[in-house]
């Protein structure tokens, strides 16, 4: 839940969405985020959590939850390393 809040804060910083952002929101259809804004959001996620997300992975992200899942995966890998 905390990660979701951090992600929605980052999304809001980029697109200033007027409503509550939910995990199941589709980035394009619900939040009207285009591919360049997705990149901006992922950059912020990378900076904030000190991880790197592959460009190929970004194109597969359709929902807010997808970003959270990828972040969890990267943070798990980081803790193992």
């Amino acid at each position, binding site marked *: 839940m905390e990660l979701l809040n951090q992600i929605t804060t980052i999304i809001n910083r980029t697109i200033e969405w007027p409503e509550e952002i939910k995990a199941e929101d589709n980035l394009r259809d619900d939040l*009207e*985020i*285009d591919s360049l804004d997705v990149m901006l959001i992922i950059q912020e996620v990378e900076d904030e959590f000190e991880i790197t997300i592959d460009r190929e992975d970004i194109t597969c992200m359709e929902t807010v939850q997808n970003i959270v899942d990828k972040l969890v995966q990267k943070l798990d890998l980081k803790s193992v390393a």
Partner: protein
Amino acid sequence: MKTKQFYERCQLDDEVARLAGFNPYYPLLGSGLDDPVVIANHAFIDLASNNYLGLANDLRVKEAAINGIEKYGVSLCATPVASGYSELFKNVEEALSDFVDLEETIILPSCYQANNGLFQVIALPDDLILVDRDAHSSLMEGIRSASCTFRLFRHNDMDHLQDLLNRNKCTGQVFVVTESVFSTEGAIAPMDEINTLCNKYGAIPVVDDSHGIGVIGKNGEGVLSHFSIKDYQGIYTASLGKAMSTTGGMISGKASLIEYLRYSISHLIYSTALPPAPLMAVLEVLSIIDNEFSSLSEKMWRYAAQLKKGFTNAGFSMVSSEAPINSIKSGNSVETLILTRKFHELGILTTPFIYPSVPEKEGRIRLIAGANLSDVSIEYVLQSITNIQNILV
């Protein structure tokens, strides 16, 4: 079976045009950029082209182009590096360098090719490119084709750019890339601040001045003049097909770099040289700008202001613009095309921007009034606003 799937995959999705009952793209012009222009035997006021100074159909420019053909023919049928590099070509390079006050210039068949080809030559794998998220697709595609990492900075957000420069850990060269005048909405990049940040962090600025050259600057010299930037250490690209009224693209900068690019950019080396007619026309356009910029510019800005006032007073939601570009906020893709159709029915040619050029619900209709338009034409547009407005109610 695969062939069938391929052709099914490569079919145009024209659902938006069908829903709007109108496809505004590829209008079939039956005239040059006169006032009015002719489409399907009907007269249209041209608010669509980028003919800012209105010189594309100027008699003097046309005569210059004809003179170019008479001396050199229609083409030199070779790339510049082979036998396509004429005295005229060199003269135009020098004239453009003088105009934008940079050391040297190369001319490519288009600015799209200039921007596409530049980054794969100048950027190495350890470098980093920082680019405005609203930069033109030619810059984005060129950057994506480079071997290095790139990152976006929020549109014209200097705090974000500085933050990215501060965080930068790359060991190579950093480039900061932007457009000068953003063509959809008319915002101008704070090039003075970008230049200062680049100097501070040892980054190379790259600016595409396609909608700035011939439009802004003390005498139309573009963005560097506009911001009184002296001793620019970066790279400058621009289209010659907008205010410069012809075709082609330029890359200018320090002489040593341009000489390197002259032998490095595939898009220049392997493309047939820009033909003599537009080259000669560029020289004439530069001469006209030199003598008449203030009067042409006054008309261009006056028309833009009249349109802005007229549409704003009529209740249209207009984008705040710093350039002689007016953009109407026109809703989603279908709404944008329906409004464009209304303009079209009234004999007014405009440029609609729909998804994916802009976000789905942020359609824009762009209006650029060239200095070749008459006061009568602008008055006609202003009087037509009520008719256009009716469909929005």
